[in-house]
């Protein structure tokens, strides 16, 4: 069992168990549960949306689209398949990524150095510090370029084509970096 699952099953101070219950309530059309879910998660998810789309106004649209999707798709969520946080974040990230892909160009502010990306991913000590430390250790075991490709994709929603341009390598190279990088990451994270 992974750490996220263990955290979710305990009812700690942030009680992810409650998030599961709120999603379950939402799936039954319970608007109070949905409002409580929004109150508990919107700020964190808005931060994630801003990170990917790069500015607040568009991130507001993304957050709105995401919560309409969460309302419509709450019945798909099953706690046996993963954490509530993972499910919610995936919806918001995909929505943000679609938003960015519809734009003609993306801001240049994301051409960050690998060191910056890594330190960004590593900074902040929170309740998920132990998981972050494990992921950080496993990311450090990857070669520099696959690591950079994975972080650009996860943190900023870079497409394979954008990574290929950013790193000045052919598309096929990016695909194999990502695939093998993710495989190694999994082997390292899963005991």
């Amino acid at each position: 069992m992974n750490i996220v699952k263990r955290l979710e099953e305990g009812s700690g101070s942030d009680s992810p168990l409650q998030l599961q219950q709120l999603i379950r309530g939402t799936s039954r059309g319970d608007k109070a549960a949905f409002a409580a879910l929004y109150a508990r998660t919107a700020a964190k998810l808005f931060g994630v949306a801003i990170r990917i789309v790069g500015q607040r106004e568009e991130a507001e649209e993304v957050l709105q689209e995401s919560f309409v999707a969460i309302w419509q798709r709450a019945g798909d969520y099953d706690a046996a398949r993963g954490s509530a946080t993972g499910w919610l974040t995936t919806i918001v990230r995909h929505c943000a990524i679609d938003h960015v892909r519809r734009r003609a160009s993306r801001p240049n502010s994301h051409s960050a150095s690998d060191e910056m990306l890594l330190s960004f991913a590593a900074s902040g000590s929170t309740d998920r510090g132990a998981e972050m430390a494990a992921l950080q250790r496993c990311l450090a075991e990857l070669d520099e370029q696959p690591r950079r490709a994975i972080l650009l994709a996860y943190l900023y929603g870079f497409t394979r084509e954008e990574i290929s341009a950013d790193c000045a390598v052919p598309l096929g190279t990016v695909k194999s970096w990502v695939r093998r990088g993710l495989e190694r990451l999994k082997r390292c994270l899963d005991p």
Partner: protein
Amino acid sequence: MRYDDPELRDQLAAEYVLGTMPSRSRRRFERLMADDPTLARLVGAWADRLTPLDTATPAEEPPARVWRAVEARIAADAAPPAFEHRWFGSLAFWRGLSIAACTAAAALIIYIAAFPARMGPPIPAVVAVLADQSGDPNWIAIAGPQTGEVSVSAIRPQAEDTRHSFELWSIAGGAPRPLGLLRPEAGNAAIIRAAQLPPPGDLLAVSLEPQGGSPTGLPTGPVLSRGKVLLRLP
């Protein structure tokens, strides 16, 4: 593409979560996932592996207009449409159950009409008994007076001052929803619609709120009593 190769499945699940899948492939993958629980489980595992990366991203309070827009967009929905295939959470399931309950009630009425002398006066169905922390029952919910209604009243007079009100809540799946204010004197019932009750097994609760009820739509004062819903009414 072959979707039965375990390595390929895990690889696609990983790229789905990472976000590198082209948008159209992602939507096709989501349709596959809907009918393939093990694929959905691979995706959940990848989301749990990667979401710690969001830890360092600062939370930002979104402006209130975002929630207002979300609320406006879902206002038309009586219930979200996406859960039809999940029988235990689905509207179809509950609809089926209430149709079955309606049929049972209709059969009962016919039976009473046919054998009035042998049945005696009908006994009101107890929907829930709410007890305080020490287990003493102090509120009761019974079916009626009309079909589709539930009366909630104090079993014994409840101490209430002029600055506070007793508020009744439905707690379905851990989420409270206000049902209305209760009268503190015994036998003076508040009537609520049976459709507002949580499903059997979920809770009704009474909290002490500022006069007129909670200003936030969520309980703000202490929960004084609670009890499980025992049956579903038509």
